[in-house]
């Protein structure tokens, strides 16, 4: 297990890349769900839940 995390001595580089990518993707997913919340808000304001 420790060997897996060590990445043959390149742990910093490999894991920071995967961490960054995960962060970027998480940011995009967060943006999408914020957009969804906004859509729901407008639907509530428009008086009905039906699109």
């Amino acid at each position, binding site marked *: 297990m420790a060997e897996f995390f060590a990445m043959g001595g390149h742990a910093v580089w490999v894991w920071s*890349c995967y961490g960054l*990518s995960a962060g970027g993707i998480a940011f995009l997913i967060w943006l*999408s769900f914020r957009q969804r919340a906004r859509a729901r808000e407008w639907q509530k304001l428009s008086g009905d839940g039906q699109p």
Partner: protein
Amino acid sequence: MWSAFANPERFERLAARLVPWFGWGAAILFAIGLPWALIISPPDYQQGDTVRIMYVHVPSAWLSMAAYAGLGGASFVYFIWRHNIADLAAQALAPIGAVFAFLTLATGSLWGRPMWGTWWEWDARLTSMLVLFLLYLGYMALRAAIEDERLAARAGAILAMAGLINLPIIKFSVDWWNTLHQPASVIRLDGPTIHMSQLWPLLVMALAFTALMTALVLMNVRNMSLAKRAEARARRRIEGEGT
């Protein structure tokens, strides 16, 4: 097919049905691709374990370019036929493409440091990607700066099309610049010829990224379309009551 994109309600229904497929598809592909990329695939005989960076770097690069092609195509459709869904697609693709362009640059840099001892090399690919990132920033800044939605959509579409036309020229000029005036580059992103044991996880990860982007774009376009129509309904109701 075409009409499904032109009619907002039909598009919303179609998207609602497709999003789970792509979303779960992406999840499954990541569940296969990540262990494959991080554990199963062997370290490269030259690059060691840093080769695993390739499995996120290359899909990011591929998606940032695909997103720009989509941005330009959607802009063209909007500009000619004024399909609102096409504009929403362009709007949804821009931040996604920008994030993946940024990730390409960042992971490329983090790959370069251990492999070639430098954070940044002015090589043709990284430089082209930097210009692509700037194009995305310009597009988003222009849209954000124009308040009227329709004007912003039109101006954005024109800029995206101009960028799409200019992109091959920029790519050519950067390659030209690089081959003529730089000492032979130390970075070779193709690396040693790619081995089958590396190609498969790369393919799975690329598919996972693509499925994820498709799911996010469909979801965002659907929600933007829903919000837009609901906003129009709400405004009509308020103004109707006001008089």
